[in-house]
């Protein structure tokens, strides 16, 4: 991407460009053409067409698809279920983004220094990322099961062990399995937990790269100045890591707002709409009700929400302070 930018820069600076220069520029763009072609056909085209569809009453089976302006957008904003899905998604993001990034950062700090088992841990922590969401969901469905799930099994065993204690034991009631996925109280948190497990390794790699990019000399200088390990982290690692942090946070927020696979496989939005997320809402509107105009409008609203959050993050965690 840098090449044409540089070329354009030159072009601006030298209005009387030589023919040779022009050919350079052209060549740069020609190299970009394959990508641009694919990008136009598979991204810009559908995105533009999606906006066009969002302005129409577009049922897949109908041949009459009248223009309705922004009625689909207004409809979504007045729909309880859309607002519910927006709140649910925000709730999911609030759980997953800070905690997930904290876990990733801690993991990265833990495996940052080369040691005997570093490679093993790096692979182990990264492994969940390569599993597809459907597999992750099914795996956790078993873990969460109230009848034969491992989590409830160990909680039960733990409670039983406590009940065996001499005095205290008598006061501890028998354990009733926690309905992780089938109670509106726990369902979204359960989805968030598995999402963090699934995604932690991805951000960990990015944090690791960020940590390793910090020159060792900074730490040496800090040590010479008498900084302890906490001060080294707070005054060297943390500010140096801010661009990485911004990158991970922005991608996490985008990812969190697009949560879909887990809820689709595990709960389909239930129980009682407690895991009904925005992408699930738009998917079901598009592919269960076949109202594509409405679904596209929801997609654009989702885009706006993500855009607002991303801009906010850029503002709050701007690069400039680091420089």
């Amino acid at each position, binding site marked *: 991407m840098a090449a044409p930018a540089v070329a354009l820069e030159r072009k601006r600076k030298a209005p009387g460009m030589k023919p040779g220069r022009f050919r350079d520029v052209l060549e740069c763009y020609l190299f970009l053409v394959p990508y641009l072609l694919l990008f136009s056909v598979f991204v810009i085209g559908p995105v533009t067409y999606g906006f066009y569809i969002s302005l129409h009453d577009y049922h897949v089976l109908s041949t009459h698809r009248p223009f309705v302006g922004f009625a689909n957008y207004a409809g979504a904003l007045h729909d309880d279920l859309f607002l519910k899905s927006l709140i649910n998604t925000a709730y999911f993001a609030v759980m997953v983004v800070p905690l997930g990034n904290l876990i990733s950062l801690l993991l990265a700090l833990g495996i940052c220094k080369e040691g005997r088992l570093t490679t093993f841990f790096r692979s182990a922590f990264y492994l969940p990322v390569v599993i597809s969401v459907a597999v992750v969901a099914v795996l956790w469905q078993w873990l969460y099961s109230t009848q034969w799930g491992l989590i409830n099994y160990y909680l039960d065993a733990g409670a039983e062990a406590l009940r065996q204690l001499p005095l205290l034991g008598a006061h501890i009631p028998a354990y009733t*399995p926690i309905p992780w996925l089938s109670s509106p109280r726990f369902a979204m948190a359960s989805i968030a937990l598995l999402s963090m497990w699934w995604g932690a390794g991805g951000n960990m790699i990015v944090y690791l790269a960020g940590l390793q990019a910090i020159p060792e000399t900074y730490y040496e200088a800090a040590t010479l100045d008498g900084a302890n390990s906490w001060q080294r982290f707070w005054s060297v690692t943390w500010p140096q890591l801010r661009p990485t942090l911004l990158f991970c946070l922005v991608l996490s927020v985008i990812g969190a707002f697009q949560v879909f696979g887990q809820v689709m496989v595990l709960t389909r939005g239930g129980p009682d709409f407690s895991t009904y997320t925005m992408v699930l809402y738009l998917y079901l509107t598009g592919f269960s009700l076949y109202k594509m105009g409405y679904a596209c409008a929801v997609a654009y609203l989702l885009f706006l929400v993500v855009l607002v959050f991303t801009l906010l993050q850029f503002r709050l965690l701007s690069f400039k302070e680091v420089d």
Partner: protein
Amino acid sequence: MPSRLLRLSVLLVLLAAALLPGCGSSSGPKSADAPLRFWNGFTGPDGKTMERMVRNFERETGIRVDMQIIPWATYYDKVVLTLAFSDAPDVFICHANQMPMFAKYGKLHSLNALMSGPQGLPDSDFMELPWKAVHYGGQQLGLPLDAHPLGLYYNRTMFEKAGIVDGHGQAKPPTTWDEFLADARKLTLRDTGGKVTQWGFTFTNLRSNWYTFLRQFGGNVLSADQKRCELTSPQSLAASERMHDLIDKYRVSPKPEGFDAWEGFRKGQVAMIMEGIYMLSGLEEQKGLRYGGAPVPLFGTQRAAWGGSHVLVMPVNEPPERVDKVWRFMKYLSDHSLEWARGGQTPIRKSLIASPVFRTMPIQRAFATQVPYLSYEPLTVVGNEIAPFFDAAVQSMLIDVRTVPQAMKRANRQIQTVLNRS
């Protein structure tokens, strides 16, 4: 340099050329001789039964059929998209409650002329409700293949152990609310610590179970003109309360929170469940399980049992030269629907129900007695849109997130909003 540019340009042109064919429609013309394309969602043992019937048809008629099984979860997406754009199959299976949408947009071929033609079938041979469910605006838009009502499955061993038997010492399933409740109480066993070791009854599929209660109390989701939601009617509330009582008041059924009721029944932890006839083959595979099937007991004031039908339909723009072939195929499957029934369905042709062969299928016969009062989910265009609301209402009241009136009131408001909008 020019030669490099030239090479690059050629490469790009080739790339574009490779991409472009992918953009066009991939549908080939349906020629008269091409195999019939038949789509359905029978991914279970029913798929094997259907496959066998299709092969028999091919052997007997010489007409080739290309059957494609697509999981129900994504089945209608594919059907709708092909009907909308191109490449629709010649014949496909549609659930009766999905037909209103296809009918509204005029996507299905009328079968009126074929039914009354020389190769037709007598209307009078079809059971009334499945027959009515395929008619829209005076047009018959599909050929119903079966009915799949909800019924009561019970564990014979548990019944006999609890002494719930008839004069011959055989397990006796309940037929009324009082009998059902008494049996469920006897069949719910607890250990000394009060922990349940065996449940008398468990809700499996909440929608079908609730809908049966609702219709038995004379309630309904929508008014007859489909303009009003009636979930807050006294009948609806009474039906839902009775269902709720089984868990909270009588304690013969667990809350539907993570308890896999179907597995519970298969593994001998549950004495009674209500499931569709199509689950029968799943029980036949379970070793050591002695089970029986019976009509749903009378919980309310009138007989009703949730049910559906698989309907054979043809797209509206089927080429005329292929229509007769498709009809022959549809008719063959209907004529042979006893074989289909064996895999866990009930036939809806009166002549087949009366046949001696059907007498060899006791559970199918027991379930089939309910076809005269089969309760389809609301046959409306907004069916898919309103179902999540009553599903959520039923679930939330059974797990005590809301009281019955609260849950029904909320769903009523949500569904009414959908009705007003459309």
